[in-house]
């Protein structure tokens, strides 16, 4: 294991590898074509990421098809997929389902689902009752009924990430004794999925209505809340890494643009107003990177309270990515406002990311509770 922020050569190579693969097989033109399709992603390409490149299981144990390298490696992959706006169930499968399954107590369940997700052959998503990015059993909208043998779920789920394409739906539901986690085959009867039209066309959502849908219990009431809390923290940290990737890409694009765009006889990047805004974009990006990777390392190694680290990451990365992508549009001028320009794709991603798993304001409020209200001066 590495100490915090010790990015090894091997990590850098991983990053390069994913980046090059994205550049080759998921360039902007491909993303634009894919995002207009009904499914919203290319299942074959997804599988190549999982099987050929083999980067979906870096945080998964080796015996389950993974590489057992830890969450930081996984975050690097998610960051690069975010940088390239790769269409596909990044949120549902990589940020939510794989961490959730990895946290399950039962080995057999893990072994059943993880290899398919890691190889990219199957996709999944997790529906966790949450409010403002926090696990919130009060917001549970699905009930599980058992006939003593099999379970059936009924209820409605809004804004389910990748919900219209996932093969398996992992759904938290209320049972007579608490909250348990279930697996539902998305094709089974009683599952009605409606694709939503999303501001960010590269990241899909669905509304799912369950009416007595057959479900399999995969985590009991005693363990489920912990699993869900842990999954949310991990997914939040990973989403922050994705935001870092998007921000870096927009920073790079903006630097390239202002270095070549000539007005008043010189490249506009020579003007202090532009130059200083670019400096501020870099600063915002660097703060986000630190916060996001601190969260990945902290969750991986247990060196900080996961909820604090994840909220910090999401609060900082949301504001940074939003501000950077808005700045990118501004500094691209009129071109930044066109459909053809790349900045709009990132603005929409940044907007959607910022509203997913808790907004910056919500995580700030949460940090106010855990970091300010409960702060005790250290005895020095």
């Amino acid at each position, binding site marked *: 294991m590495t100490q915090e922020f010790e990015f090894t050569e091997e990590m850098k190579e991983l990053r390069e590898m994913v980046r090059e693969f994205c550049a080759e097989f998921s360039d902007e033109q491909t993303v634009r074509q894919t995002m207009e399709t009904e499914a919203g992603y290319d299942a074959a390409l997804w599988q190549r990421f999982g099987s050929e490149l083999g980067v979906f299981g870096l945080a998964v144990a080796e015996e389950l098809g993974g590489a057992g390298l830890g969450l930081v490696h996984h975050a690097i992959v998610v960051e690069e997929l975010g940088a390239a706006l790769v269409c596909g169930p990044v949120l549902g499968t990589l940020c939510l389902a794989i961490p959730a399954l990895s946290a399950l107590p039962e080995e057999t369940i893990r072994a059943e689902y993880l290899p398919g997700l890691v190889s990219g052959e199957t996709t999944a998503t997790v529906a966790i009752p949450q409010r403002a990015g926090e696990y919130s059993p009060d917001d549970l909208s699905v009930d599980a009924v058992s006939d003593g043998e099999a379970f059936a779920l009924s209820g409605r789920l809004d804004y389910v990430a990748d919900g219209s394409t996932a093969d398996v739906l992992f759904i938290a539901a209320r049972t007579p004794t608490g909250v348990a986690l279930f697996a539902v085959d998305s094709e089974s009867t009683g599952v009605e999925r409606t694709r939503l*039209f999303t501001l960010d066309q590269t990241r899909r*959502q669905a509304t799912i209505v369950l009416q007595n849908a057959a479900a399999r219990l995969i985590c009991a009431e005693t363990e489920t809340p912990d699993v869900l809390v842990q999954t949310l923290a991990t997914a939040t940290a990973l989403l922050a890494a994705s935001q870092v990737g998007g921000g870096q890409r927009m920073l790079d694009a903006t630097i390239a643009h202002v270095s070549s765009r000539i007005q008043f006889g010189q490249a506009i990047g020579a003007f202090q107003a532009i130059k200083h805004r670019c400096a501020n974009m870099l600063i915002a990006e660097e703060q986000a990177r630190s916060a996001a990777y601190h969260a990945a390392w902290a969750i991986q190694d247990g060196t900080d309270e996961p909820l604090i680290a994840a909220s910090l990451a999401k609060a900082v990365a949301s504001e940074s990515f939003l501000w950077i992508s808005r700045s990118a549009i501004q500094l691209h001028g*009129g071109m930044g406002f066109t459909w053809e320009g790349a900045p709009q794709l990132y603005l929409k991603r940044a*907007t959607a990311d910022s509203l997913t798993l808790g907004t910056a304001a919500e995580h700030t409020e949460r940090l106010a509770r855990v970091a300010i209200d409960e702060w005790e001066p250290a005895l020095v």
Partner: protein
Amino acid sequence: MTTAEVGVVPDAATIEQIARDVLAEHPPASTPITHLMGAWYDAGLTWVYFPRGFGGLDAPRSLQPLANRLMREAGGPEPRTVNTIGYGIVAGTIRRYATPELASRLLRPLATGEEKWCQLFSEPGAGSDLAGLTTRAVRDGDGWRITGQKVWNSLAHQSRWAILLARTDPDVPKHKGLTYFILDMQTPGVTVRPLRQLTGRAQFNEVFLDEVYLPDTQRFGDVGAGWIVANSTLGDERTSLGDRVSARGSGAIGDALALWAEKPENHSPILREQLTRLWIRAEAHRLTSDRARVAATMGVQGPESAITKLVGSELTQQIYEYCIELLGPEGTLIDTYSPEAPDDESGPTAIQRKYLRSRATTIEGGTSEILRNVIGERVLKLPQELRADKGIPWRDVPR
């Protein structure tokens, strides 16, 4: 019907009487808009400060808001909406630069909206640096041949006429080699292509000019004086904004307040504070705009009017950024990106649409960066920065 006595400067009472007569004879609810606006023009109410016979009454400019208000109160249109660029930018230039014959040919259909106008100024390579534009106008007999590419031309596809800036002399510094023309958009060689924006819509166009001929009679101002004419045009645009004071809680901040009221389940102390801060800024901006308006009516052009656009645009953006955060997960949805959908900001995801549209406010009509330069140099009289293109023939400026 009341008329204003020739040779006597009409006062408010006269204007009011004339307006009431026109409106009584042409009830806005039942009169086709071109008829209504034609009668309004003929009565001299379109621009009361214009000469008689040209839509005016030689009245003081300060009486125009009265005429507009009477039209509104009678259920008629806000005049600008009839022909946005025509009213906002072109009419004053026509008055100043067109021959009486040409002016009388152009002004009435402009006023009625029968002939819409667009502006062909910006180019792909000339945005903030408008004076660096590349479109060439070359002498051809009694006229000119224009070749080049223009961009950000709203309404170009619906317009009969355009105002056009082109370079007539590349061998002098950039500002000095420009000439101002008007162009009949039906002339051969003019191609209009819609330009899709990040909203999915195509509110603007690109316009390609391929050896387009226009007669020299469609030149406004001297050859090489285009920058001066254009600036008087843009000056009209700015001063035409100040007619009305908005009410507290209207406009973008009104959207935010309404959304706040609609979404009690999304309330939090932080969002409440943020909304209050935006409200405070909106109020300070509204009051500053009002102060600028009063100063303008007293003949004082204070710094207040120069900062209105800058502050307003940045505030609008931030208000819709706030609205998106207040919307929460719902903010991740959009109804459609179809370019065929109506180009407005209504519908079930109106807030998201306004949010997206607001990104342009700090770019169009002068970026915030350019406006801060203008405030620094023209209002605060700070020294000009070094410019690579200063005093150099346009031909030799790096591009």
